[in-house]
């Protein structure tokens, strides 16, 4: 025993020391809180990079005709906007929350595999750098849409192999992150906490982790085949050699549909954590929430071809994918009703995290309903590849995933920094966002139903009015988000901000272990597992 201890003295690892000094701290850190912060800051930066691209798109679409950019560059913008937002902003932001909160929620000293945790983050940076580098290449960034369909994507210039390898790096990052999260949840829980006592954010990440490990290799395989088709003479997606471009679509969407759930399941988790605290009631239907999450995850693997109704499938396939897709609405509905029932007769207050969460429940429902409309195969022939699709998935991603990311930020930042954020400004941020997001995306339903195709830089004049409205909403929404940065920086600096109590929110300690820790939370927490598990959340 003492031999072990003295051996340990020689390495530079001491258990109870604080962060390393200087900027190297951030490069070599294995601390889940440091890594969580890096993920969150990186995601926020990427949110603005992707947002700038979106505003370029909306500026061009403000009026019919070509105003600002070349069509090729316009298409690069739609492609890069989506890839940056999905892989650079939303996913990393949720991994950031997972890093920060999961060990604190389950009473663990850190993540299960801290060195790999560091590597996941840097792989993400490497992947995004590689992706961003394609913007400056001969032939421009990929302009095929984020789905990277062949044969179109094979016409990309020098950017193609870089885009493919960036997907590989991002995949490695996600898989390592997911493995780490699963191992942490299954192996590092406080001994007193059973699986069915875990907060829902932890549950949803457990399932999301599984999804990620199952699908990222699939996407990696698909883009590898693009690479070999372009450079090594294979014919996977080339009918003349016996292959089939539609095969790519099947593989992509086998990845792609669960991928959208990777972005929404942790959203559900955070919403289920916030709503009970501000409704001052336990979460309604804890176990049904868990089962609904698991069913959604399972179903997400058998619905992929609802993205391909118009591609030419046997009628039996159309029917199968139509009904399977509709079934997803059932567990999703269970969740919506549970959140509503949680609020029912609760002693609600409307701080910023709650406002964003309520908006999420309402607006996500809207996105779910349009999804249900599109799941009807014959009707989707009309909607497919129009702005209706754009409206659908933006309702599920922006006022859902992004709103909940904001909610989570406001909810936990007092715990992280020990300071309360500026509630007045945060509510202003909420109202500006909630109103402008609808000005931005609601008219896109009308445009889509009237037949405006997606991914085009110019359009027929009958679409002018609603496009103008949408663009105005986009600029208000985009600039409103700068408020978030301002509020966050102000809270971190902490000069004019009130001190946060340990519990932060009234009676929060009943809802989760993280609220039993001091604010700001120390660098190392739960060196020994907690004895008492709060039980209010289930």
């Amino acid at each position, binding site marked *: 025993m003492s031999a072990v201890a003295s051996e340990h003295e020689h390495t530079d690892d001491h258990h109870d020391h604080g962060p390393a000094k200087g900027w190297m701290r951030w490069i070599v850190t294995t601390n889940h809180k440091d890594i969580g912060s890096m993920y969150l800051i990186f995601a926020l930066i990427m949110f603005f990079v992707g947002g700038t691209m979106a505003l370029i798109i909306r500026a061009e679409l403000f009026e019919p005709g070509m105003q600002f950019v070349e069509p090729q560059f316009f298409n690069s913008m739609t492609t890069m906007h989506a890839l940056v937002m999905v892989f650079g902003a939303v996913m990393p932001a949720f991994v950031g929350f997972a890093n920060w909160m999961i060990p604190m929620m389950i009473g663990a000293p850190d993540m299960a595999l801290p060195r790999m945790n560091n*590597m996941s983050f840097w792989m993400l940076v490497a992947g995004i750098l590689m992706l961003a580098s394609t913007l400056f290449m001969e032939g421009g960034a990929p302009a095929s849409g984020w789905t990277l369909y062949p044969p179109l994507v094979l016409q990309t210039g020098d950017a193609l192999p870089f885009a493919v390898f960036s997907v590989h790096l991002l995949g490695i990052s996600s898989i390592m992150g997911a493995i780490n999260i699963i191992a942490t949840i299954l192996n590092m829980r406080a001994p007193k906490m059973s699986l069915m006592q875990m907060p829902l954010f932890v549950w949803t990440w457990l399932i999301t982790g599984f999804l990620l490990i199952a699908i990222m290799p699939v996407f990696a395989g698909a883009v590898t085949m693009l690479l070999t088709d372009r450079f090594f003479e294979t014919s996977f997606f080339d009918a003349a050699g016996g292959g089939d471009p539609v095969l790519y679509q099947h593989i992509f969407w086998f990845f792609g549909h669960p991928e959208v759930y990777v972005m929404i399941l942790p959203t559900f988790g955070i919403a289920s954590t916030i709503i009970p605290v501000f409704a001052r009631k336990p979460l309604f239907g804890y176990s049904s929430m868990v089962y609904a999450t698991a069913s959604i995850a399972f179903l997400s693997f058998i619905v992929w071809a609802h993205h391909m109704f118009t591609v030419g499938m046997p009628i039996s396939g159309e029917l199968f994918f139509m009904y399977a897709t509709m079934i997803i609405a059932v567990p999703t509905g269970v969740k919506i009703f549970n959140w509503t029932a949680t609020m029912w007769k609760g002693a609600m207050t409307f701080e910023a995290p709650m406002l964003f969460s309520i908006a999420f429940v309402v607006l996500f429902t809207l996105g779910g309903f349009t999804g249900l409309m599109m799941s009807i195969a014959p009707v989707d022939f009309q909607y497919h590849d129009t702005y209706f699709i754009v409206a659908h998935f933006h309702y599920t991603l922006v006022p859902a995933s992004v709103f909940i990311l904001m909610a989570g930020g406001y909810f936990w930042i007092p715990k992280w920094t020990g300071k309360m954020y500026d509630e007045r400004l945060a509510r202003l941020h909420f109202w500006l966002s909630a109103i402008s997001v609808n000005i931005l995306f609601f008219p896109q339903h009308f445009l889509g139903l009237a037949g405006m195709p997606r991914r085009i830089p110019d359009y027929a004049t009958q679409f002018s009015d609603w496009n103008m409205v949408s663009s105005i909403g986009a600029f208000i929404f985009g600039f409103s988000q700068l408020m978030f940065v301002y509020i966050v920086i102000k809270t971190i600096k902490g000069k004019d901000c009130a001190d946060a109590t340990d519990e932060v929110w009234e009676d929060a300690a009943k809802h989760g272990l993280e609220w039993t820790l001091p604010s700001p939370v120390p660098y190392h927490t739960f060196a020994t597992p907690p004895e008492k598990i709060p039980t209010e959340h289930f």
Partner: protein
Amino acid sequence: MSTNNEYYIPHKATWPIVGTGGLMIMLAGFANYLNGSSIGSGMMMLGLSIFIVMLGGWFTLQATESEAGMYNKGVGISYRMGMMWFIFSEIMFFAVFFGTLWYTRNLSVPWLADEITGSTLWPNFEDVWPTNGPGNRGGDYEPMGAFGLPLLNTLLLLSSGVTCTWAHHGLLEKNRDQLIKGLAATVGLGFLFVACQALEYHEAYVDMGLTLGSGIYGSTFFMLTGFHGLHVCIGAIILSVVLFRSWKGHFTPENHFAFEAAAWYWHFVDVVWLGLFIFVYLM
């Protein structure tokens, strides 16, 4: 200060950033090479070297810590979970290519030859397997038979699975000699497999006209067997490291995560080969 009962949490990891940098330089180099840039191959070699240095350094660190008794049971469980989920991700990666083979054989090739597409576009194209498509991509070729090198390779890999398990028994029964012999045999059989596969590829390219460019048959054949061969190489290298560590006296019946991980990986590679032998060669 960490004690044996505590979950070991390392501070300051320097290898991850080195590995990430190496991998990024390597891939950027490869991309440049594919685009015909002259700096490509140099960058690739540089990146690869950095990556190999990282692997060596990181594994040495882990082995040292493990032998120093810094990993308790909890750490061991985390590592095992990590390895299991990693193998699951590998299974999904292979599933893509098996799925591709299934899809083309059962759906897209028949569609290309059916009365709708076939009679209008390619009247002479028939639904047979193997095929290099209606465009006769890559010219005439001879398909790869199952009996001969592939069957030999099946036997080699299956016996390597046996020797690997035999080595494990040696380890559990504190029979170091059996452990080392078993591992050496496994590694040897593994590399022999790779050599036979190289021979098979040589025959295909030189004598049979079968290349990666031979339509969908060549594409699926070489992608599946090629990625598998790459995994055999990786597995054999991991096993070599484990062999070296066993020879240095590492591992006890209670504490031998590296051995277990390598063995799991090896069995996974083995099972994939069985799938290949059935679906690529036999059927």
